[in-house]
């Protein structure tokens, strides 16, 4: 009895799933640790008091949302250039993870805005451009769900992915280009030195979470495509048998 390629694919998928689950647990333990360190070492802010600690989740979510969309743009461009399915699947995985982070970013921003500005939401340039980015990528995901033909789906979503990524520099620069209620970008060079380590380690922990999400989603998408192709081969083999 021989071992087929499909059997080997199944075996490696099972192994990879177990490894992925352990990696996930490790990554979330790391995130808990970096948050605990940041909260423990940061002193209350002069103006915001302990509310400043929201920065350790809000700002890493924002940076990694931008990284996710950078990945979408790069792999969308690569797909349009080379036409390889792998690039389309990576772009889609990054778009889904990026949309999750953008949704989280908006909610965290509202939670921070209420006690700081006295309102949950305002049509400020930064908030509005971030919301537009979120809806563009929700649109990207809806488009993928409704187009059945893989080639057409990949081409259209690559175009939408690139269009959406054009909004990222607008989101980033909005606090400089327009007079906004939102403060200027938080970065290690603009925040108080007391908060730099906490911000950096949490940004790195979020980046590791993002990489884990993208990789996990990409591997599942690859398995889905392999299953579709095997189903097509099985259907063709059955049809061939009937015709013979």
């Amino acid at each position, binding site marked *: 009895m021989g071992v087929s390629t499909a059997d080997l694919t199944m075996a490696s998928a099972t192994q990879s799933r177990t490894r992925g689950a352990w990696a996930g647990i490790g990554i979330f333990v790391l995130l808990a640790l970096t948050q605990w360190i940041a909260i423990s070492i940061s002193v209350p802010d002069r103006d915001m008091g302990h509310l400043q600690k929201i920065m350790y989740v809000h700002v890493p979510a924002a940076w990694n949302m931008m990284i996710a969309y950078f990945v979408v743009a790069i792999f969308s461009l690569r797909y349009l250039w080379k036409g390889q399915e792998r690039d389309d699947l990576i772009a889609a995985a990054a778009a889904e993870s990026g949309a999750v982070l953008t949704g*989280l970013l908006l909610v965290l921003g509202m939670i921070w805005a209420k006690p700081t500005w006295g309102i949950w939401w305002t049509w400020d340039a930064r908030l509005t451009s971030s919301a537009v980015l979120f809806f563009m990528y929700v649109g990207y995901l809806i488009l993928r769900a409704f187009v059945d033909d893989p080639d057409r789906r990949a081409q259209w979503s690559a175009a939408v992915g690139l269009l959406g990524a054009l909004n990222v520099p607008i989101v980033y620069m909005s606090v400089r280009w327009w007079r906004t209620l939102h403060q200027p970008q938080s970065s290690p060079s603009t925040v108080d030195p007391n908060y730099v380590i906490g911000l950096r380690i949490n940004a790195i922990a979020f980046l590791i979470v993002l990489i884990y999400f993208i990789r996990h989603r990409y591997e*599942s998408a690859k398995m889905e495509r392999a299953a579709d192709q095997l189903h097509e081969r*099985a259907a063709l083999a059955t049809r061939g048998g009937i015709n013979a």
Partner: protein
Amino acid sequence: MPDNMPFIVAAFGITWVVLLSYAWHLHRVRAEAQRRLREATEALNGGGRA
């Protein structure tokens, strides 16, 4: 207790709920993909193996 504690707890709590929920969703998507791959493998091999 720090000022604005409910907002701080909400921010960290929502972060964990969102990230863990998405991780769980990915885990289920993967399990489903694996199930489909197994079914497809069996279909290609004639519906069962000795």
